[in-house]
């Protein structure tokens, strides 16, 4: 693959909630295409199986008992937040109206 279209790059950027500047656009068009080329190589390997591999072993899941353990203190949670107000973590407003 040569390069992606601008529209494709914008779509991926939107899913990742990223702004892409005009000067970076050209760069990403080639870079993302390179990644897809690599993925095509992986896909071309014939692995001949109908079974979905989701874990490296066939061992099944072990359940967790329905018990409550120690939880985080609010002060510790807030250490990882850029912005807090009273009891809440605050992020930029994510909706336009309402």
């Amino acid at each position: 693959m040569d390069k992606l279209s601008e529209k494709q790059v914008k779509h991926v950027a939107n899913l990742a909630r990223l702004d892409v500047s005009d000067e970076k656009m050209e760069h990403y068009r080639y870079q993302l295409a390179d990644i897809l080329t690599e993925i095509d190589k992986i896909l071309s390997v014939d692995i001949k199986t109908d079974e979905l591999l989701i874990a490296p072993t066939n061992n099944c899941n072990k359940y967790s008992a329905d018990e409550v353990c120690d939880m985080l203190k609010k002060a510790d949670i807030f250490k990882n937040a850029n912005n807090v107000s009273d009891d809440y973590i605050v992020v930029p407003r994510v909706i336009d109206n309402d």
Partner: protein
Amino acid sequence: MLIPTIGIEVHVELKSNAKVYSKAKNAYSNEPNTFVDVIDLGYPGVLPKLNEQVIKNALKACLACHCKINELMHFDRKNYFYPDLPKGYQITQQDTPIGYDGYLEIEVDGKKKKIGIERIHIEEDTCKSIHSLTGTLLNFNRAGVPLIEIVSKPDIASPEEAVAYVETLRETLLYLGISDVKIEEGSMRCDTNISLKEENAKEFGTKVEIKNIGSITNVGLSLNYEIQRQKELINQGVKIIEETRRFDDNTNTTILMRVKETGNDYRYFPEPDIPYVKLPNEWLDEIRKNMPKLPNELREEYKQLGLNYNNIKTLIANPDIAKFLDSLSCDKVISSNLLTGDILAYMNKNKVSFEQLNLDSNLFVELVSMISNNELSSKQVKELLPVFLEKKESPKKLVKELGLVQISDTDTLLKIVRDVIKNNPNSVIDYESGLDRAIKYLMGQIMKESRGQANPQMANKLLLEELSKIEK
């Protein structure tokens, strides 16, 4: 003619001690960000661990909805960037829902219909966002709360059927004891899909999704509005666009929402942090064995017992009362009348729950047998009940204390009957000329003379006998 095709997705919060993938507490708290651990916040390197109680509760829902079960299943990641989900993905079940291909039977205007259930899958709730003017406030107490999503097939043909479906589903989950199912508080949330097509058309019309429906009544209101809106557009020749709208209960209309990504954009892939999940056979056997009686089954039983429509409806809406009734071995009609009538009224008036009432079944049976043996008139029952419910003593004893004993002695009653006939000659003439209300009046006089203590059945019989003698 344009006809609607409706499908409903319902999210239900499941009851458990801990959350679905973490050991933080699964409960409501007035204090934000207190029931949270590293897994709920999606810290790097943390691993989810599946709570067994969540699987058991989801299985109950699947079996109650007659679903087939995926005994070997896995989880998937649904990827999207939004601050309510700091991991950047929700752990859900895309390929192998725990239950699929089931149904729920509903009844509308006396007609029964099976609504197909496409799938029931397990997933995690997101954190709660509050949108203020300056920013969005996040409360992670809800993050990781176990949910099941129940997706119906597009079998629903009217807003009335939609309401019946949600109501039947709510009742069923309530009786299973796996959720609070409070729509108003968000522990049950409904999204509907609706499209219109010409009656004979093979293909469905373009569907519109309605979100933010805050009550069962609003399920009906929002669909009615949307059907009308789409009909008008189609009749004007406007093409319906696939979109998400929300219901506004101030105006009873639907409003266009911001469009979120759909389908492929979620880039589902298997969750590598949870190995294959194999359901133990013992769990399925145990759940099948201990399945409680569900509303549809109870409704049929009540009909067989001869209970009336309103009593049945009230009983189904009050599972603890229905359970109490089920445990009794006395006259069910009298019992249900008492429980759904005077006793429920007493509970509402005094703001007590049925559990708080602590009704003793032996004493209750004693009361019912007194009524069925005509030892108490309905007026006396009304007088006795509040005292009975408060004191929790033998109704026989209370009747004596309150002086509510009925006069069932023939000689005493006959004297009262004869006096009443003698003192009301005009009513006797009315009776002879065929006026039914005359007999009611005379009975009223008898009850008055006896200060409400005359056994009504006996007094009525004696009155008719005495009147027939006069006729001769």
